[in-house]
């Protein structure tokens, strides 16, 4: 008897090598913080970044996994989880690279900051593999609490504190709602692992109470991915947080949220006929509110926060379609969103370092002094707006295609109308960079090496995703096919 459990445990640990490695990395970072003198604390960021690169290489193997459960069905290792882990790790690497040049971060706090980033990354990796309601809740809470601290990391900045408190209060509330919803499901099915719930559903079908529980859980997910009307925290938290954390929050945390949302629904709901209207309406409201409010924003971080909300609306549009194409479009859109947003935030940081301002009106004259970089920034804005030949366009094309295929023409129409609104406020940034008469920026923008790497690799990727997307599509198809089984109605 005694020999059985450790073998299973060891197998689990082996399968979760990337997570275990990241955990070790967190300890390494803490140790480095103690050992390194204050002057060379920024080295810790490099250590963590290189660690993440290694973890990324380890995770690549996940993409070929067929899907296996570990730790009493609490965690699944499959290519879907692998896909999102890669997105999370890439954004973590970019985020640490951005942090190197982020001035408001004090040197003596770097160790604490980095260890939190490493831990939150671990949490999100676990989130994308969670296949048990308990595991799901624990990992979500782990991530949320760590992010509260990261958002409020600039202790001397009132806005940072304000953002953290708002994030914390709404987060705690939504966690409670999530647990309430989950209790319905556990109560009905008598199980918490997705595998057992699925068995119960196959045998007994979906009851109305089960759907109610799922909808209540949706509130919890909605908070994580900033779905309207659960988005109130996002603009304040984004504005207050240190900009690299904002970028991380908007990409990694959202992707992880999307991953658990998709995984949970696909795992325990055979078809979304009962909830699709709610999801569709939420998607429509989310896009529209996000885009409309973004029009009036002058702070680039707030603007990107609202634009991020709108993008979640688009992702949800793909999710509403629910079929093969729908889930594929979610994956591709998230991938596009990763590189597009990271590039845009890298520019926000570069310009902030130059001017000390996050106000887009202070971007005036950028195109005169650095025409090349301005155009690259504009390409990122085009990708956010979904104009070809960029990744944002390809994502949007897939999402719209999925919606039309699933006969949500009205949703697709709202989607395209929104992309016109979106273009307006992205073009406002271009307006200040290119057309504004009074010049605020008078010297060329100088990018540090990490920012250069982020910007040009993201640029390469967003062009690649639109112009040569075949490999990504094949990966997405394979990934989604593994998720969908005989259990599903489509």
């Amino acid at each position, binding site marked *: 008897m005694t020999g059985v459990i450790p073998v299973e445990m060891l197998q689990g640990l082996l399968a979760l090598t990337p997570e275990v490695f990241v955990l070790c990395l967190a300890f390494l970072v803490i140790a480095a913080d103690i050992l390194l003198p204050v002057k060379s604390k920024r080295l810790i960021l490099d250590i963590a970044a290189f660690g993440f690169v290694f973890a990324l290489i380890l995770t690549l193997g996940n993409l070929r996994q067929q899907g296996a459960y570990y730790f009493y069905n609490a965690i699944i290792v499959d290519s879907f989880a692998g896909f999102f882990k890669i997105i999370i790790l890439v954004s973590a690497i970019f985020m640490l690279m951005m942090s190197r040049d982020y001035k408001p971060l004090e040197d003596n706090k770097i160790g604490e900051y980095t260890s939190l980033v490493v831990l939150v990354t671990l949490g999100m990796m676990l989130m994308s593999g969670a296949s048990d309601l308990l595991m799901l809740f624990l990992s979500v809470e782990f991530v949320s609490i760590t992010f509260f601290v990261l958002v409020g990391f600039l202790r001397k900045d009132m806005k940072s504190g304000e953002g953290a408190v708002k994030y914390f209060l709404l987060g705690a509330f939504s966690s409670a709602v999530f647990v309430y919803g989950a209790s319905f499901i556990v109560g009905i099915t008598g199980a918490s692992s997705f595998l057992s719930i699925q068995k119960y559903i196959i045998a007994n079908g979906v009851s109305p109470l089960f759907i109610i529980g799922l909808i209540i859980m949706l509130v919890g997910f909605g908070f994580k991915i900033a779905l309207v009307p659960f988005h109130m925290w996002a603009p304040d938290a984004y504005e207050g947080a240190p900009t690299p954390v904002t970028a991380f929050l908007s990409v990694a945390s959202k992707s992880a949220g999307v991953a658990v949302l998709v995984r949970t629904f696909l795992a325990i709901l055979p078809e979304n006929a009962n909830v699709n209207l709610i999801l569709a309406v939420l998607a429509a409201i989310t896009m529209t509110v996000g885009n409309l409010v973004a029009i009036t924003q002058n702070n680039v971080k707030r603007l990107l926060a609202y634009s991020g909300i709108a993008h979640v609306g688009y992702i949800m549009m793909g999710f509403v379609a629910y079929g093969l194409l729908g889930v594929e479009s979610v994956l591709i859109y998230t991938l596009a969103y990763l590189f597009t947003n990271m590039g845009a935030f890298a520019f926000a940081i570069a310009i902030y370092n130059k001017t000390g301002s996050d106000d887009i009106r202070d971007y005036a004259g950028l195109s005169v002094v650095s*025409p090349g970089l301005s155009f690259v920034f*504009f390409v990122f804005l085009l990708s956010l707006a979904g*104009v070809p030949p960029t990744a944002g366009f390809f994502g949007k094309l897939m999402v719209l295609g999925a919606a039309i295929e699933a006969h949500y023409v009205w949703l697709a129409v709202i989607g395209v109308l929104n992309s016109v609104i979106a*273009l*307006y406020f992205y073009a406002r940034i271009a307006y200040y960079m290119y*057309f504004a008469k009074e010049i605020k920026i008078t010297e060329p923008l100088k990018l540090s090496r990490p920012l250069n790497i982020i910007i040009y690799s993201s640029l390469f990727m967003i062009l690649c995703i639109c112009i040569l997307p075949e490999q990504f599509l094949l990966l997405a*198809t394979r990934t989604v096919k593994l998720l969908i089984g005989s259990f599903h109605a489509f």
Partner: protein
Amino acid sequence: MPILTLITFLPLVGAIVILFAPKGKDNLVRWVSAVVTFLTMVLGFYVFFTFNRGTADLQFVERAAWIPSFGISYFMGLDGLSMAMLVLTPFLSFLAAVYSFNIKERVKEYFFFFLLLETGMIGVFVALDFFLFYIFWEITLVPMYFLIGIWGGPRKEYAAIKFFLYTLFGSVVMLLGILALYLSSPITAANPTHTFDIIELSKIHGLTPGFQQYIVYAALFLGFAIKVPIFPFHTWLPDAHVEAPTAVSVILAGVLLKMGTYGLLRISYTILPEATKYFAIPLLILAFINIVYGAFVAMAQKDLKKMIAYSSVNHMGYCLLGMAALSTVGLNGAILQMVTHGIITGALFFLVGVIYDRAHTRDIEGFGGLMTKMPVYAGIMILTCLGSLGLPGLAGFVSEFMCFSGAFSSTVNPVVFKIFTGLSVAGLVITAAYFLIMIQKVFMGPLNPKWKDLPDMTVREYIAIVPLIVLMLLLGVMPLIASGISVESVNSLVALLGVKI
């Protein structure tokens, strides 16, 4: 040799080369652009002269798998519908690039965007895969936005964003239509995915005739109508034209507007023939409104450039009139009208640029008696205006005559067509009126002493304008050079539409 790929991407290569030009070497940038656009033009003429006029089949076809899991292929080709525009686009681009030598500020960026625009425009006319088509279609927006917004006139920011938002609105709605067509194509054992192939889609007829087709037609139509522009979607045009720098106005009028009519012909007509027939009468009425309304508004303008901009609305109306007829004469006339309008209005915008560069005003009332001061300029301007109002012997007459006679003899609904064609003739009269009034006010009468020192045209301006005038005369006398090119393709299109000739 993949000649279409070469024509399409040569300007893009030029644009990238320009990026590496050292700072301050403005003349180098200008000459590189001139050479690149010249080579593109030479290739365009080469294709034009080797093009086989005796067949409706696609020529110069290039096809390669691109994104197989989405049914997207890299598919380019030419037929009679696109040939004329393919030769006109590089031709006008070269002339516009030469004219743009007078751009003084941010030269490098200007020519970068200009060449990027050329790639987009040429791509639209050769792409036969929806995905490729849409990418090129959208690529034209961005450079245009900057070309108007940075180098434009006093209200350039407003005009630029208005242009961008209007056309993007049209194209995203069009995208929905494209997706609907894509999803309507059947999945078979031979084709495991849907297809974006425009030619394939026109053979399949995936959508059932009736409501589905009408909705998709309407979605596509919105995208094209904004581009043409068809009343009531035309309001971006005067703003964009008035604020854009001269060379960009020429491209806008000469090529960009034609993307709309070309799109209608290439996509709506071939893929949705039933809906096309259903909407022939509404299109006729819109054409009538474009003609008469455009002419009246043009007459009311005090600004020379704005007048020509509205005359574009009016002239695109003739083109739509020919298209609505769904007959061989009408469609051939519409295609020829696309070319002649590109040539004549292109020349007019250049000529307006010439006078504006000297006088820094375009107020029609403010001139007078320029004939004595700038005789050559006045002669060319008057000749071009006469071409635009449809004087026999010049290019405009032939195409307008074809459009009118096509519409008049249309069998879609003879009575309605005869009535509206008859009413549209009023447009010709008004057009003649406003051009003649303008000529009188600007060139005749006593010389306004303010303009006694105006010099006549320079070499750069001659290079840009004279070829257009020569072509205008040539096409007026020998229209077959251009109109013969579309005959076979139009025949097969009319056969597809199934309208009695």
